[in-house]
């Protein structure tokens, strides 16, 4: 199979197999899969409010997905989007609660704070990888848990609300990314200005990757570190930069989630959007446009699951199961390719070695 031509086919095959697995699980507990999917899709799309919720969920997923995808381009696996998102969200929430400024300026400061917080959290594993060859997977996981505890103790200490110890104060309307015209148009959904942050990020990341020297260098490091080094590219600097930008993108997801989708920060939760970002990035073939498309799809699955759960006896975790299964089938997409080749060869009555092509995303 030629690679570029079949990226879409493989993604669709993974989605199809994931949905089949979901159907099997629905049937296994005695529910009707067609009914389940009917309510799941209607829950995500049946009216303008629910479409708004799907877009709002996709906003956060686009940003974490871009974060994972961007690091992938440099051959780094950013499994720490959850922690970067927490720190970004913490910084944005702190600005929202503590800084007095006119609304436009305040919102810009919140976005910048979110990016900066995530960027700091991402750049440390990047530095450890570049300088000491510490595996970024383990380092980012450790950073996730440090972020978890930082939020756990700093929210009650500095940002506490009036009543509960376990969450921050509610941010004011003026400091929220929710805005009245979007709210009116989408009839009171969670949608917020974060959507434009996410769309902007998709475009900026596309431009960086396709049109700039920085993007070229980052990808060169991802394809072949040694060759890049020989060509005079500063590998270590690029690794740190890559993780810094990836962390910043996840930090922005924290901004859009905690100060847009939600109105405060709860402690004791590692946001699942960070891990879903891995699925979004992989299904989107680590391309910005693909990331946005798969974020919309996963956004629909997530925002429709509540309605499905209300109308049937299927637990809402079916969405997470489908998403996880899709990642598995994306990782094993070579299987689909092999089966396809075997089928074609049988059609031609020819025997030969199956395709042993493997995924090479540079990790």
């Amino acid at each position, binding site marked *: 199979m030629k690679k570029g031509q079949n990226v879409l086919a493989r993604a669709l095959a993974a989605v199809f197999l994931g949905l089949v697995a979901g159907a099997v*699980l629905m049937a296994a*507990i005695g529910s009707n899969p067609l009914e389940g999917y009917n309510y799941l899709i209607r829950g995500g799309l049946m009216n303008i409010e629910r479409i708004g919720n799907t877009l709002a969920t996709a906003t956060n997923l686009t940003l974490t997905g871009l974060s994972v995808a961007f690091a992938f381009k440099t051959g780094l*696996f950013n*499994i720490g989007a959850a922690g970067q998102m927490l720190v970004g969200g913490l910084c944005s929430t702190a600005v929202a609660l503590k800084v007095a400024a006119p609304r436009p300026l305040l919102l810009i400061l919140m976005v910048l704070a979110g990016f900066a917080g995530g960027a700091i959290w991402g750049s440390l594993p990047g530095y*450890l990888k570049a300088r*000491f*060859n*510490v*595996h970024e*997977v*383990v*380092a980012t*996981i*450790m*950073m*996730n*848990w*440090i972020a978890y*505890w*930082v939020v*756990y*103790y*700093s929210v009650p200490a500095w940002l506490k609300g009036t009543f509960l110890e376990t969450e921050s104060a509610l941010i004011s309307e003026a400091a929220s990314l929710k805005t009245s015209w979007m709210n009116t148009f989408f009839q009171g959904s969670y949608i917020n200005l974060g959507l434009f942050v996410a769309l902007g990020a998709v475009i900026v990341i596309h431009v960086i990757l396709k049109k700039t020297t920085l993007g070229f260098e980052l990808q060169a490091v991802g394809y072949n570190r040694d060759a890049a080094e020989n060509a005079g590219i500063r590998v270590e600097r690029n690794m740190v930069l890559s993780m810094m930008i990836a962390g910043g993108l996840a930090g922005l997801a924290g901004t859009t989630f905690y100060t847009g989708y939600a109105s405060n920060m709860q402690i004791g939760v590692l946001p699942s959007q960070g*891990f879903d970002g*891995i*699925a979004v990035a*992989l299904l989107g073939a680590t391309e910005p446009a693909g990331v946005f498309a798969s974020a919309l799809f996963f956004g629909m699955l997530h925002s429709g699951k509540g309605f499905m759960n209300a109308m049937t*006896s299927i*637990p809402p*975790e*079916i969405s*997470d*199961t489908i*998403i*996880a*299964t899709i*990642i*598995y089938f*994306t*990782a*094993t997409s*070579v*299987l689909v390719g092999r089966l396809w080749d075997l089928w074609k060869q049988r059609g031609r009555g020819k025997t030969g070695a199956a395709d*042993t092509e*493997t*995924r090479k*995303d540079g*990790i």
Partner: protein
Amino acid sequence: MELWHIFIQIFPYAVAFTIPLLITSLGGLFSERSGVVNIGLEGLMVMGFFAAAITVKGLENSMGTGAIPLGLAAAALGGALFSILHAFASINLNADQIISGTAINMMASAITVYLARTFTGSGNIRIRSGIIRQDIPLLSDIPVIGKMLFSQSYWSTWLVIFILAVSWFLLYKTSFGLRLRACGEHPSAAASAGINVYFMRYMGVMISGAFAGLGGGIILVTYSGEFNGTVAGLGFLSLAALIFGQWKPLGILGATLFFGLAATIANVSQVIPQLAVIPPLLLKSFPYAVTLMALVFFSRSSRAPKAAGQPYYPGQGQ
């Protein structure tokens, strides 16, 4: 002297916390030594946690505490079966092992809560029975050591120590262990010596699944008592202990005991005046921060199996 007294007091709790980490990390050792990186340990623990919970829940009314060993067996079996997904992806399909492991983690937590919700209505499964702590006769009377190691201990602790000893013997003193390690260092050379690399790697991954599952099961029947869909990063901590312990059984024992002590100290710090002065954030993040620092020291001269994480293509030199 006061601190020493506290240390003796909390040591049994540290051991209880260490044991699931130790057995899971030991599982990771088998997988990585055979050449397959397994970051799905977290999910495999969750799977064992769940398998033990439904087994004990289903049998405890009729069998009483006899359900517990069966629950642990189910945990190991559940982990081993679920790990086949990772083995198939990594070994037969040459998939990216990190991505496959991530998928294992996400699938395990989603599917177990999905099933738990179907069985119990909520996502949690609470059991009534657990392993009862017991003093070991005679040994628990030894001064200091008796109090630290042999008093109020769970029998599962001794099971895991026994598995640790057997694992060491298996890896370093038997031809099976030699073959397994060869597959993780240089699979083509191992294959040319007549070793079935696929089989050995399957063994490595499935042992890791069984051990991680057992770790999850032990959490349930010792200090947790309730399945709630997550092991809160213990699987990842086990993975870190594997690196920290430099891929050696005794190194892993030291690393996990260190994590166990650190976590226990963080948990009890509020009630101990000498420790209450330290900000809890520092205590809670201590194991993770220390892991990062340890990785800085160890990663330059890593003793990681050379072929860990690399797919094996038959008939192809490396």
